[in-house]
């Protein structure tokens, strides 16, 4: 899922950098406020931890192996803002030193895995664990699903970024200049591996680490008192008002069409019809490029692929076929998922303006070790 340099057009990269920058800026501002930079070493160490967790090749049921990103547990322990910074740091070190993920695509990779991943994980965890006791099974399942969801949201966003490339960027003859597979190929190919293996690895790792911390370090999870997440860093990082979050997402959605203004291509020019019969082959081949793909992809997926193009039939109004609209639509689609989850979490947990008193609670957390 680490997109290398050259797979995304520079305009897409710039858009994704801009989108990520908004979140980074906000997250840093929160961090700066948190007790005089107390969060800094925690973030750095969590980032280093995520990096090391990516080296754990976890044996999975069924004989395969996969590795987790650590975004699930990072978001649960540090909250969505701390989580996105920690995972972004880990991804940056990976890109710089190991060429795992490109430098021009770092913005996109961080957006998918660190930012959207953290928000999704945090939202899912809080939504599903709401009202449950500290040691309940539901809370553990919530952690597992937070890991699973975060990875899949990230994969879906990456697939969308891949999938819009051939529509927007190709030469005069129609040959794609960047990632060559359209949405209806990229999405199933990407998701096949992540809905199964990578998602499972992240789910198991998140739930396992969560279970360990719950038994041994409940304070880290904000579960120390009365079984409810009311103190500790996890809630400290809870957005006091969702306004910042909404603002960030709005900016992101507004920015997306800017990407294509530079590209200037038309939706539908590069029709998927030429690929329809070969879609299954493409899935298998491109899936092998993603570490976690299974040996065989069911051929039925090619039918499923039609789902993605179906919403835009031939008789749709002309503006719907414009590149800008398609791009925008994709952005709304991807962001909508995160947005929905976070919104539901906000609504159901019913927290408003809490967290100001946690600063003092946190100081008592310091101790001798």
């Amino acid at each position, binding site marked *: 899922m680490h997109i290398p340099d050259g797979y995304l057009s520079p305009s897409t990269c710039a858009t994704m950098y801009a989108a990520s920058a908004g979140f980074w800026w906000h997250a840093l501002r929160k961090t700066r406020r948190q007790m005089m930079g107390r969060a800094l*070493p925690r973030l750095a160490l969590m980032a280093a931890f995520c990096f090391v967790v990516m080296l754990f090749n976890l044996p999975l049921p069924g004989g395969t192996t996969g590795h987790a990103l650590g975004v699930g547990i990072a978001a649960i322990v540090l909250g969505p803002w701390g989580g996105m910074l920690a995972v972004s740091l880990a991804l940056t070190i990976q890109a710089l030193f190991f060429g795992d993920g490109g430098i021009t695509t770092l913005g996109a990779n961080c957006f998918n895995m660190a930012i959207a991943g953290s928000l999704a994980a945090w939202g899912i965890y809080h939504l599903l664990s709401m009202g449950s006791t500290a040691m309940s099974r539901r809370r553990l399942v919530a952690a597992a699903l937070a890991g699973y969801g975060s990875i899949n949201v990230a994969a879906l966003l990456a697939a969308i970024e891949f999938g819009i490339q051939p529509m927007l960027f190709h030469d005069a003859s129609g040959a794609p200049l960047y990632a060559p597979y359209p949405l209806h190929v990229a999405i199933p190919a990407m998701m096949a591996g992540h809905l199964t293996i990578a998602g499972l690895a992240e789910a198991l790792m998140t739930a396992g680490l969560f279970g360990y911390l719950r038994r041994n370090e409940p*304070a880290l999870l904000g579960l*120390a008192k009365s079984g409810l997440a009311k103190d500790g860093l996890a809630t400290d990082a809870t957005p006091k008002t969702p306004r910042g979050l909404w603002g960030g997402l709005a900016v992101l959605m507004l920015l997306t069409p800017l990407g294509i203004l530079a590209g200037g291509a038309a939706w539908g020019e590069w029709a998927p019809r030429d690929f329809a019969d070969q879609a299954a082959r493409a899935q298998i081949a491109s899936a092998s490029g993603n570490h976690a793909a299974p040996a065989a992809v069911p051929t039925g997926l090619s039918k499923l692929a039609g789902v993605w193009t179906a919403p835009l039939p031939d008789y749709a109004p002309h503006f719907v076929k414009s590149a800008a609209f398609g791009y925008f639509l994709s952005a709304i689609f991807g962001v909508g998922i995160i947005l929905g989850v976070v919104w539901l979490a906000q609504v159901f947990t019913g927290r408003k303006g809490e967290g100001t008193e946690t600063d003092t609670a946190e*100081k008592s957390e*310091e*101790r*001798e070790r």
Partner: protein
Amino acid sequence: MHDLQHNPESVTLRTTEFEASDLHFAYEGVAALRGLSLNVREGERIALLGANGSGKSTLLRMMDGLLFATSGTMKFRGQALTEAALGDDKFALGFHRQVGLVFQNPDVQLFNPTVFDEVAFGPLQMGWGRDEVLERVNKALEWIGASHLRNRAPYRLSGGEKKRVAIASVVVLEPDVLLLDEPTAALDPRSQSQVIELLGSWNDGRKTIITATHQLEVLGEICERAVVLEGGAIVADAAPQTILNDTALLQRANLVHIHRHTHDGVPHRHSSPYLHHEHQ
């Protein structure tokens, strides 16, 4: 209670640096300090003796204004070290300039990417000018004999080198008081004596040095006054030789014991109390 008050004439003339009275500290219901009182005067070299969990590290961190008592007061030169006082940038900077703490685990202390940056961290926080920072850092590195290590990553240093760099990173600020948490633990004998020599050469007779340790064999070299802690309270305060001769006290404070344990599954017995060291 062994109350062996050690009070040489020469020391009474000097000003009081730290004044701790009836300190209590608890974390998550577990008490780390229980009614500890202690006076430290300028130029004193004191050893805090105690087994793991006796409250030595907690006390040092309170003296450095990093932890705050649940009840009781800790004063430095008459000023109470409260959370509010340390929240003030001006006071905190001045205080940390005067009182330095070397942590037990050098990996905690060495968080910068290179040795040079490590030693420069403190001076830069103090807001000193570029030339002064460079000069002081170079001087400190030369003093610990690590000028050749300046561009190395802490990861690549040996245990003794790490410890020396950690000391340099604190001493570079030229504090009046140096707090040391187990400075010789987990070092080979040669590195141990290097560190002790280094600390000896730093003290010009007016510097206050407080060393937490459980290693009795270094006691004579690092202090003129030894304070024994047990369960978060002081059980003895005397000249090092007096403490070393009191076997009953040392055994009770868990500082010497002849005990049985295993190393990698092989039963092993310590014969000498002076060989006591930490076990994983």
